[in-house]
């Protein structure tokens, strides 16, 4: 069982080998989180400790601990039913963990509601792209930016405050067009989101998530149901964004894709962290191979 028991020191040991982030240094910054809110290189990564989630008698996540490095592509892989999506849902507040702790940028976010998590800069996309189907692509995009004054009912309705709402709407609109152009889906702007293809929806969802100005993105199977050419495009975008300093945690069950694109790979199996490390190392790990071939690990 020793391989499956990745506990705290082991998880940390994997992190700083070539990172410019020293754990000690980082922990001293708890108070300065506000300043480190954006993707500055010394901001804290996501840290999950002893996460456990039970549904009735079923233990979906069984003491998972891992950290995500800043400004990197981290892949979370595992066979079906390994607990990846549940872990994701616990991090993003959709499920409340049974026990364990989740820290984001040094702050405890365990048990926060999904909107609170998103407002801290940790934004997710969904496995099945969840577009707002009977809204146009542009409306979908314009929903996302934070701090919109017009979301206050009175400011939207009253005539003398409506102007400032309009002004902000123009800024928002401009950013949305830029983002649509960046993702090359600007020709679809006036289309209902429900009419988009699977791949276009994934692009829209990523674009929409970016408009919330996240510091970290959690992508739940971003490549599922996407045709190869769009997959390449999506990957290019993700690499671009990584280079700009965004942090990614990507859940996938397509092992090859993760191995080729991520700097750091976490492998889950049966609710536990099987191993983590650089792709080359993980690829050689016999437990991982066994898990993917369906063998019972540690027996």
């Amino acid at each position, binding site marked *: 069982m020793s391989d499956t028991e990745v506990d705290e020191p082991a998880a940390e040991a994997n992190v700083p080998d070539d990172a410019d982030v020293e754990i000690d240094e980082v922990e001293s910054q708890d108070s300065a989180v506000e300043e480190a809110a954006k993707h500055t290189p010394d901001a804290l990564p996501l840290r999950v400790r002893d996460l456990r989630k039970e549904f009735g008698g079923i233990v979906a996540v069984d003491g998972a601990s891992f950290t995500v490095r800043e400004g990197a592509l981290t892949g979370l892989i595992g066979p079906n039913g390994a607990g990846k999506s549940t872990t994701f849902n616990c991090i993003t507040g959709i499920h409340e963990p049974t026990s364990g702790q989740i820290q984001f940028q040094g702050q405890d976010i365990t048990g926060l509601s999904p909107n609170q998590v998103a407002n801290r800069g940790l934004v997710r996309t969904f496995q099945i792209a*969840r577009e707002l189907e009977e*809204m146009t692509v542009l409306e979908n995009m314009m929903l996302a930016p934070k701090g919109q004054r017009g979301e206050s009912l009175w400011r939207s309705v009253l005539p003398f405050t409506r*102007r400032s709402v*309009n002004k902000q709407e123009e*800024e928002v609109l401009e950013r949305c067009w830029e983002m649509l152009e960046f993702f090359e889906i600007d020709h679809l702007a006036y289309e209902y989101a429900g009419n988009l293809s699977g791949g276009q929806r994934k692009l829209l969802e990523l674009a929409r998530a970016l408009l919330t*100005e996240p510091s970290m993105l959690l992508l739940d199977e971003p490549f599922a149901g996407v045709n190869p050419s769009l997959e390449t495009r999506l990957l290019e975008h993700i690499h671009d964004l990584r280079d700009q300093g965004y942090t990614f945690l990507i859940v996938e069950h397509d092992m090859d894709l993760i191995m080729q694109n991520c700097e750091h790979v976490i492998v889950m199996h049966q609710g536990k962290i099987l191993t983590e490390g650089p792709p080359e190392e993980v690829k050689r790990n016999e437990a991982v191979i066994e898990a993917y071939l369906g063998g019972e690990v540690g027996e």
Partner: protein
Amino acid sequence: MSADAEGDAEAGNDLPSPLDTLWGQDATKLGLLVVGIVALYVIAGTMLDYGVRQQLNSIGLLLFYIAVFAMLALALNLHWGYTGLFNIGIAGFMAVGIYTTAVLSKPAALSEPAAGSVGGFGLPLWVGIIGGVIAASVFGALVALPALRLRADYFAIVTVGLSEIVRFVLLESSFQKGQIAGYFVGLGGGSGLILDFDPTDQLLTVFGLTEPYADFVDGLGATLGIGSNPKPVFDSLLYALLLLVFLLCFYVLLRRTGNSPFGRVLKAIREDEEATKSLGKDTNMFKIKAFMIGAGLMGLGGILFYAEQGAITPNTFRPRITFFVWIALILGGAGSNTGSVMGGAIFAAFLFRGPLFLKNVIEDIFEIDAVNTFGQAIGPLLSSADPLPLLAYTVDNLAQLQLVIMGTVLIYLMHNRPEGLLGHRKEPATSIPLTRPDRSTETTTQAMSDGGPDRVTGGEDDE
């Protein structure tokens, strides 16, 4: 929340909203629809040899129903069309509204009133109306708070249940009469409440127009040849026009609400609440706000519906009225404010008032003399294949068949045009037109780098 910079770039930019032009078009459409309906009714009235008095009465009543159903449909559109809240308790909110107004504004009775009647607190009517709207809104919050976590269908059950609870509370004899701080007040129980206030009279008094109005009415009444006592005719017309003004206010308010970032979040909640949450929107707050506003407007709709009727009884507020409003909304197209008004007008004119009128017109044209019972009507068809008595009988009972006709129309719509007349129109939820900004191609990747200094920041006040 991480962006707490509060960089409230103060906006003093005055941009003429080109939405006004679109709004103008929609208003024109709606105006034409109402004028067309009125013309149709005038023609029908002429065929029935209506005198001026009858014509004016019929138009007054028609406009009244158009206005109330359009207002209620607009309020429901905020709940269902925008936010996706399946509210089938409209009657309850209406009842809370008008009953609160009645209790607050009925003349005070400081000594024990006669059996079967109760007093109120004797407050001015406008205080009563505001109180009624607030009460309906607060009642909305009470419904919403526990029920918002429920799925749409369970939420619907809660709302219809609560509207029935309201009705039974109003029927309850323990609340019929009581004494609060010296005032003899109560809900009247099954016999209801006499509304001994007249909104049009009060309004005229406020503006000091009682005398000129009386002179005007007498003069015009004489000119038109209405006969003795023209005041009730003009009162009902005046009240109908007043309601059309209220309808306009509803429309403007809800359009502004819908075409704004607030309305955008509501639409997003309708589409997918979880996805909306994952973008950092506190959806529960938005849902409660939308539900309270809609409930308050339904209360106001109830107040305006019944304030001039002279009396209210609890059994007026059966779920049937809720479904009338739903039919109006579905007709017009959920999600569109213009469609809601259209649906309200069409429902009032053709489904609510229409059958009765149609019956009179047909009977007048064909000079039908219908038999009295179904047996007498079906007999000739069976014995001598003569369908005429049955047809005549059906026409004679068109008013009673109202609900059957409504049901048929609803089924037809669901099969052939579930989105209603204007349901699938694109009404983007933004306060500005979504044109593409005119600019040369910048390096788009640059724009990506987190928005730069011109990033939109501002206080989140929806937490």
